[in-house]
């Protein structure tokens, strides 16, 4: 009882305890900010990774595999899975205006199905927006103005029609007025200038090389046939229909997405009748039966192939379950199709989550977080010692009070509890302050970073190194609770020895203390 009264009085009348509360606050804030940002980084890594490829990726890289529509049907029939989408993943070169060439991962997708598996539609940058983005303080984002200022191409009237073209990955050929496949480039691929982090200024306002829509690029790929042999490079001029801003640096800087039919055409993965010409009198192996025979012109009917099927599980289902469901459907599919023509390729099917594909990277990040948290918790031990020394000197200074309290009947235990309770209050105040500080810092970390960038020329978070354009700014309540409790415990631990000393004090000596 009296402990509560004295704690209140000591807390409000002394500067030292407030200093120890500040120490506790700074340590908890340091640990929580780090944990939030780095933990958020890992979280974003894991979820954003899925944003462009779904939960699981099934693939035979290189040659690809046939009968994928049957696989997709089986996957979509499974109760734990929502959607699956075919894709052709390849490496290619993108020829940009002014002779620039960019290396890129080129994904051929079926846009509607792809959008059901991933967040593709959210990732398209050129779209109508009502309010400026967070960092666009002057409202200079081109998307806020009329779209007509930027393009002249047919079929394009508004930002919405630009978005529609991106969603369908389809452009209108100016000569024939026919729909043709378009391409969406990662937003940093074309070298858009970026006046502020978060929004982009198109490279040029001249229609002929105005990239985001209607501009043209040359797509060059080096295909192989169903046996994996390289065929000569294929090139196609395609219209850019939109740009992709996923927040994943890998995607935004090195990926282009086009229609699956175009990629299948270019890579010879589109099925149908194909004549294999003889190359002189040669003995060859029949690709279907495996028999040796003289090579004569033959017409073979090949099934269409893709390299990849992206799978998305139902919301709320664990990743493990989604993987299990995918594996189940895939095995049934292999079983049913492996004896069909080119069914042998199905043996090479692999299945991986985004986390597995990036396992090394993810593990490194996890380890780094663990290490930094350990170091900072260790550093936070200074708070314990600070509280310790401050309490030691306060017990000293308050020796006479302790004697008085004992003289009026306070027990040793009561005196010890006085100091522990006092430390508890300091811990609670300090931790609460620390949590508040770290909440404010984390929630505004991007603004703080921007400010450092513009005012001090300090840019710590480089989106070309980290995967994301935005620094994670969420505080996990569980993390906050753990760190807050840690702060309180640190204060109580720090006060332990001084409290015991106070309790053991000889009351007579304490009273005589000057």
């Amino acid at each position, binding site marked *: *009882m009296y402990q509560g009264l*004295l704690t209140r009085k000591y807390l409000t*009348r002394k500067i030292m305890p407030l200093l120890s509360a500040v120490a506790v606050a700074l340590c908890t804030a340091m640990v929580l900010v780090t944990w939030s940002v780095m933990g958020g980084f890992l979280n974003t890594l894991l979820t954003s990774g899925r944003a462009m490829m779904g939960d699981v990726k099934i693939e035979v890289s290189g040659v690809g595999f046939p009968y994928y529509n049957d696989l997709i049907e089986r996957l979509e029939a499974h109760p734990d899975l929502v959607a699956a989408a075919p894709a052709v993943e390849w490496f290619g070169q993108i020829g940009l205006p002014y002779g620039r060439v960019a290396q890129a991962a080129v994904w051929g997708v079926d846009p509607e199905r792809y959008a059901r598996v991933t967040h593709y539609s959210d990732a398209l940058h050129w779209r109508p927006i009502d309010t400026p983005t967070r960092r666009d303080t002057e409202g200079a984002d081109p998307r806020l103005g009329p779209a007509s200022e930027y393009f002249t191409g047919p079929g394009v009237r508004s930002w919405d029609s630009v978005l529609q073209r991106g969603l369908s990955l389809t452009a209108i050929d100016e000569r024939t007025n026919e729909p043709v496949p378009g391409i969406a480039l990662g937003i940093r691929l074309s070298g858009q200038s970026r006046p502020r982090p978060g929004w982009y200024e198109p490279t040029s306002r001249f229609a002929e090389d105005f990239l985001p829509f209607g501009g043209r690029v040359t797509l060059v790929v080096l295909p192989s046939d169903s046996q994996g042999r390289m065929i000569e490079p294929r090139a196609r001029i395609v219209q850019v229909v939109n740009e992709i801003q996923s927040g994943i640096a890998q995607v935004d800087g090195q990926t282009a997405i086009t229609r699956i039919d175009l990629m299948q055409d270019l890579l010879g993965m589109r099925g149908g009748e194909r004549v294999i010409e003889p190359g002189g009198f040669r003995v060859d192996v029949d690709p279907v039966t495996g028999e040796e025979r003289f090579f004569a012109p033959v017409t073979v009917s090949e099934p269409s192939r893709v390299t990849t099927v992206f799978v998305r599980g139902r919301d709320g289902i664990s990743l493990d379950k989604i993987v299990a469901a995918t594996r189940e459907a895939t095995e049934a599919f292999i079983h049913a199709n492996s004896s069909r023509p080119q069914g042998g390729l199905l043996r090479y099917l692999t299945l991986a989550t985004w986390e597995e594909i990036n396992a090394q990277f993810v593990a490194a990040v996890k380890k780094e977080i663990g290490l930094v948290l350990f170091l900072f918790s260790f550093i936070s031990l200074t708070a314990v010692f600070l509280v310790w020394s401050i309490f030691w000197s306060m017990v000293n200074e308050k020796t006479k009070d302790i004697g008085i309290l004992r003289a009026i*009947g306070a027990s040793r235990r009561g005196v010890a509890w006085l100091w522990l309770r006092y430390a508890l209050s300091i811990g609670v105040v300090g931790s609460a302050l620390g949590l508040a500080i770290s909440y404010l810092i984390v929630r505004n970390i991007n603004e703080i970073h921007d400010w450092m960038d513009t005012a001090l020329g300090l840019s710590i978070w480089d989106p070309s190194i980290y995967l994301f354009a935005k620094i994670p700014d969420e505080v996990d309540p569980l993390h906050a609770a753990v760190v807050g409790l840690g702060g309180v415990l640190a204060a109580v631990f720090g006060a332990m020895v001084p409290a015991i000393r106070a309790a053991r004090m*000889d009351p007579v000596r304490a009273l005589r203390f000057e």
Partner: protein
Amino acid sequence: MSKRDDQTPILEARDVRKTYRLGRVDVPVLKGASITAAPGEWLAILGASGSGKSTMLHLLGGLDRPDSSRGGNKGGEILYKGQPLRRMGARRLDRYRAADVGFVFQFYHLLPELTVMENVLIGAMVLHGRLGYRKRRDEIRARAEGLLERVGLSERLRHRPVELSGGERQRVAVARALVNDPGVLLADEPTGNLDRASGGEVLESIASMRDEGRRTIVMVTHDATVAARADRVIELRDGLVVQKSALGGVGRAAAV
């Protein structure tokens, strides 16, 4: 008051020895001093500086113990209502200090962060604990206010000790010592730090707190005129008690 109460001393020091160790040297301060205080009596212990008056008072108040009895009863006994303090456990002893005796010190010893009122209430908080205090809160507050009024400080309840004069502080200390209505008030040179006028006021306060002789007062002083306010004066000299009469100041043999 029963007859038995009149005969049994409320507080008694029986052949008490107290030795301090300074490094390797034993400094005997009390060498077998005996004191008895009858219920309702105002007893003054007179003695020169360093004669062991405070030591004796601390022993009487259970803040310290006589020398441990290495073989027999060498250290002597302090008895409260005939019961030796030595036998009390730590808990009972804490309670003894909280409820049965009240202390007033030469240097007031108020808690500087608390107000006058809180300094008085804290004695009750220590005794009753959280729940007990909550239950009796109004009663205790009324008693504290009453005590402060009796010592003439009802206008100063919210002041802090630094805002009071020495005499006023000492009167707060008197009120604090009595908040739990103890049977015994132990006062260690209550006027030692005060001028004659405010010392007189403090003595008046103490006198007014005898409550028609229900309360025993043991007061330590080196000032014979202060001691003269008591019913009986004894002198502490060379670690032993020399009995004196209250009125004439003529030496008398020990009565007990």
